[in-house]
């Protein structure tokens, strides 16, 4: 409860600050508020409240994912201080919209009732439909916003129809009541329940950009301003997978037979599309978009093995992925600011133009590959390990092969960075970029020590 309050009030305050002369205070205010929210969440202050009425539940899963979302959100907002980000939307509104979107993400991580899930998805998405088109006068931005909006609303339609059918079958929107119903009627799930479940799956698969519902992602990622893309590929992905896992582990565990094969098929397809698609990319930004798709596939593997330890595995994977991805996007922002484009060639000689950035980017790519002892390795280790223990051996073999393919394209930025002549003169990072890079890299490296703690906490 306290978290929702803080974030909504913070968003409103940020908007209000555009009135007087508070514009310069926007980012500091937002950061302070987010850190406050993080502290409150971390200490568990007033998270549960009678007014929640079973709509949301701040269990340990929700707390852990909320913290991750808040940290990611803080880092993205911190990037807003850069003056050179091209955008036609004023910074105040951007900050406010990001905060609203973040609130939606937290709703998705903590829902216990389908209305909260639905509202969360919408509150997460609607600000992003707007932010995707933040470069109002560029056709690419226009196109990104419109594509995102149409495909997103289309997917929401399926999600809603699914919710309605689930309600029809079980008579309730509460995850607990739905699980109880499924428990009580184990032999035959009514077709209505079955259909509803699958349609909800489709709606959420869209949000994490799983194939064949992924087509929007590369185009929208490319057309949006990089800072918005960094938000989409981290916060949105984490929130969506958190909601996905929460829904299927809390509401539908008894019906696993009905959905696990779909997840397996979607995961396999997603892995293939993401990894193979990335192989053929020339733009770093699009490459990261396909990378996001491929990691959606890996994340889905965690969903397949719902059980003890799988939530922890999911968290570690999501955290490793999103911090590494954030580093990649900060690199992109910095290179763009230094006059480079979005192509891979723009990264060439980055190690000599700015060694710190080069090292961070390399660590990020290595973590995305899954090289030990970085965080990405542990994510893959636990996710694969859980999936193997649930007898999904064939799928894991496929995933391992696909991660081998992944290595081929993640090496390309590293090669550009270190083995190519510099594409320009050395440049400085802005203070905020340096901070974000430092923090995110620290997480990528230090999360390797976290698995024990996370597993014990969950």
């Amino acid at each position, binding site marked *: 409860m306290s978290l929702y309050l803080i974030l909504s009030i913070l968003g409103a305050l940020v908007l209000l600050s555009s009135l007087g002369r508070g514009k310069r205070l926007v980012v500091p205010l937002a950061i302070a508020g987010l850190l406050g929210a993080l502290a409150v969440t971390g200490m568990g202050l007033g998270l549960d409240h009678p007014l929640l009425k079973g709509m949301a539940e701040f269990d340990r899963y929700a707390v852990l994912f909320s913290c991750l979302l808040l940290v990611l959100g803080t880092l993205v907002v911190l990037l807003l201080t850069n003056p050179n980000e091209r955008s036609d939307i004023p910074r105040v509104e951007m900050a406010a919209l990001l905060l609203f979107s973040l609130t939606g993400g937290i709703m998705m991580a903590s829902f216990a009732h389908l209305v909260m899930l639905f509202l969360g998805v919408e509150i997460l998405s609607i600000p992003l439909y707007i932010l995707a088109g933040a470069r109002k006068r560029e056709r690419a931005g226009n196109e990104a916003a419109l594509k995102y909006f149409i495909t997103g609303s289309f997917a929401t339609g399926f999600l809603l129809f699914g919710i309605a059918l689930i309600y029809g079958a079980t008579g309730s929107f509460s995850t607990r009541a739905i699980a109880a119903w499924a428990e009580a009627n184990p032999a035959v799930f009514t077709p209505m329940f079955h259909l509803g479940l699958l349609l909800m799956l489709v709606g959420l698969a869209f949000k994490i950009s799983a194939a064949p519902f992924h087509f929007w992602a590369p185009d929208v990622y490319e057309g949006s301003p990089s800072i918005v893309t960094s938000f989409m590929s981290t916060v949105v992905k984490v929130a969506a997978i958190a909601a996905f896992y929460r829904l299927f582990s809390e509401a539908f565990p008894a019906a696993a037979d*009905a959905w696990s094969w779909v997840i397996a098929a979607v995961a396999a397809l997603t892995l293939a599309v993401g990894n193979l698609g990335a*192989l053929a990319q020339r733009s770093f930004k699009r490459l990261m978009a396909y990378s996001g798709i491929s990691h959606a596939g890996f994340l889905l593997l965690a969903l397949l093995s719902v059980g003890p330890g799988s939530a922890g595995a999911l968290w570690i994977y999501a955290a490793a992925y999103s911090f590494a991805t954030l580093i990649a996007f900060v690199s992109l922002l910095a290179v763009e600011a230094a006059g480079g484009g979005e192509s891979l060639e723009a990264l060439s000689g980055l190690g000599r133009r700015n060694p710190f950035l080069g090292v961070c980017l390399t660590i990020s790519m290595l973590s995305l590959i899954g*090289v030990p002892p970085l965080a990405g390795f542990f994510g893959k280790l636990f996710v694969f390990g859980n999936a193997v223990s649930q007898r999904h051996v064939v799928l894991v073999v496929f995933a391992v092969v696909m991660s081998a*393919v992944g290595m081929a394209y993640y090496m*390309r930025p590293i090669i550009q960075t270190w083995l190519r002549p510099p594409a320009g003169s050395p440049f400085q990072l802005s203070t905020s970029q340096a901070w974000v890079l430092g923090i995110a890299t620290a997480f990528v490296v230090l999360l390797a020590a976290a698995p024990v703690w996370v597993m014990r906490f969950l």
Partner: protein
Amino acid sequence: MKNLLVVLIPLLPLLGFAVSGLFGKRLGKSATGLLASGMVLLSFLCAAALAMLHFRTGDSAIVVNLFSWIRMPGLSIPMGLLVDPLSLMMVFVVTGIGFLIHVYSIGYMHDDDGVARFFSYLNLFTFFMLVLVLADNFAVLFIGWEGVGLCSYLLIGFWFKNHAFNGAAVKAFVVNRIGDAGFLLGLFLMAMTFGSLSFAEVFSRAASFGSGAPAITLITLFLFIGASGKSAQIPLYTWLPDAMAGPTPVSALIHAATMVTAGVYLVIRSNALYALAPLTMAIIAAVGLATAIWAGLIALSQRDIKKVLAYSTVSQLGFMFLALGMGAWSTGFFHVFTHAFFKALLFLGAGSVIHALSGEQDIRRMGGLRKALPVTYATMLAGTLAIAGIPPFAGFFSKDEIFAKVFEHAPALWAIALAGAFVTSFYMFRLFFLVFHGEFRGDATAKHHLHESPKVMTAPLVVLALGALGAGFAGLPEIFGAPHWISDFLAPVTGRGESHLSHATEWMLMGASVATGLLALLFAWVRYGVKGRVPAEDASVTGVARWSLGKFFIDELYDRAIVKPLFRFSAWIHDVLDRRGLDGAVGAIAGISPWLGQQVRLLQTGNTAFYLFAMALGVFLILFVATLR
């Protein structure tokens, strides 16, 4: 004290990496080189001190648990280091030979701009290699395994800066990852089956499964896939010749002496598992023997000095696996040990030659170098004699022991292996005579430039040559009455192999292999030393014209009946099977991915209507299959 020493062994090169990586530019070239070499030497000294302090009294193992790394229900993995005779020997090989190669690199890389980067990578590689051999469980071993792969890649690509990142490099990478994927699957299965990844626990729990248990067979097979990727066995060997693009010291350190033997080390380390999986052992022996012959045949017709050595390495690794397939663990390791000396020597010698010729690697443009490069000549001779298995050089003892073990199990395989030894000796002496004897075949400017390498490069060559001469005495055959030092030392890890061969048989075997080696030497001498043939004509058909001139008939008969077909076969294997067949099959997996990627990319038409249609189709398919189920 001893724990500190154990930790220092890998930590010192890591420190070297950090310092030379961070401050290399400021330190200057020679200081960085000295620092990097010094760290490896210190590491070696730590290992030596450890050996002095603890392994003379009969202690068999030291385990150091640094911290608990992964702890989850049902599986806990400490970050632990293990020093036992096997890992100690490996540490000696890695740091000892590694040190010499570091020193050599100071001279070899002297004119390069990226010296600091080079040495920091080398030190990082040494660190990961030490982690690999010192690991006390499979998870830590895997860290080292991945780390050495990464460093290997960085070092191969060291001189790649101005070339396009090509498909071959991607291929080499994917091939390696196929092996790693196998390894990883093996780890998962192991964790599932035994609930642990620590060597001690896995091996003790495996004992209760009994011989031939499917789980163990599967695990060992997966581990072997990993091993054959790293150690370049059929069908995953194609990356190694390609890796020769890197600087020569890298080839010597990584692709000859240390990293490629990691697969052999893995199998020896897991010998308790492999002993329970007869099927896997048979496969290993078959793959090893096939690789040994196959790569040897290919080496026959190579014209690039480093490619010859690369195929030779693949072939020698095949012999090692052949030994392991026979269950002769300490024998396999013995060959790893001697091979490290003479193959590092050969590569460094080749490097010295290349250095003298300002980068020329084609043996057709060498020749007669023995006068200009006396030290290199002498040391290369030692290395060539060693690999050819001429007593008393190191290769003789280890190879002979392998052959004895093979004969004991399967005389038919022994005959094939002997043929392999003949080929080995022949292509090595072919290389040797072509490079050092006859007339110089390069142009005048190159001839003018010929010079012996500086002391900093020749000194390691001399040390290694002494090793190639003396390393074999660490494992004298039983019939000489001396103790087999290596086998005794490794006994706590590998157990003691019993030999059932009579002395007469052993003498016979020894004689046969020496005779084979000398025969090949003779052939090579006649063909390349006396007649001064140049490989350009090896596979050419126009040799018929020469034949009609009425030369020595027997020689021509031999030439036509044996040598030419052999060369043709070799060339054919290389061109058709190797490049198009096997390489194609492995490459197909890698090659098809970019093509598929292109298809996926083209699917992204930019047309939102199509996206929506695809989504609807996805929903339809899911629901359709769901109703059918």
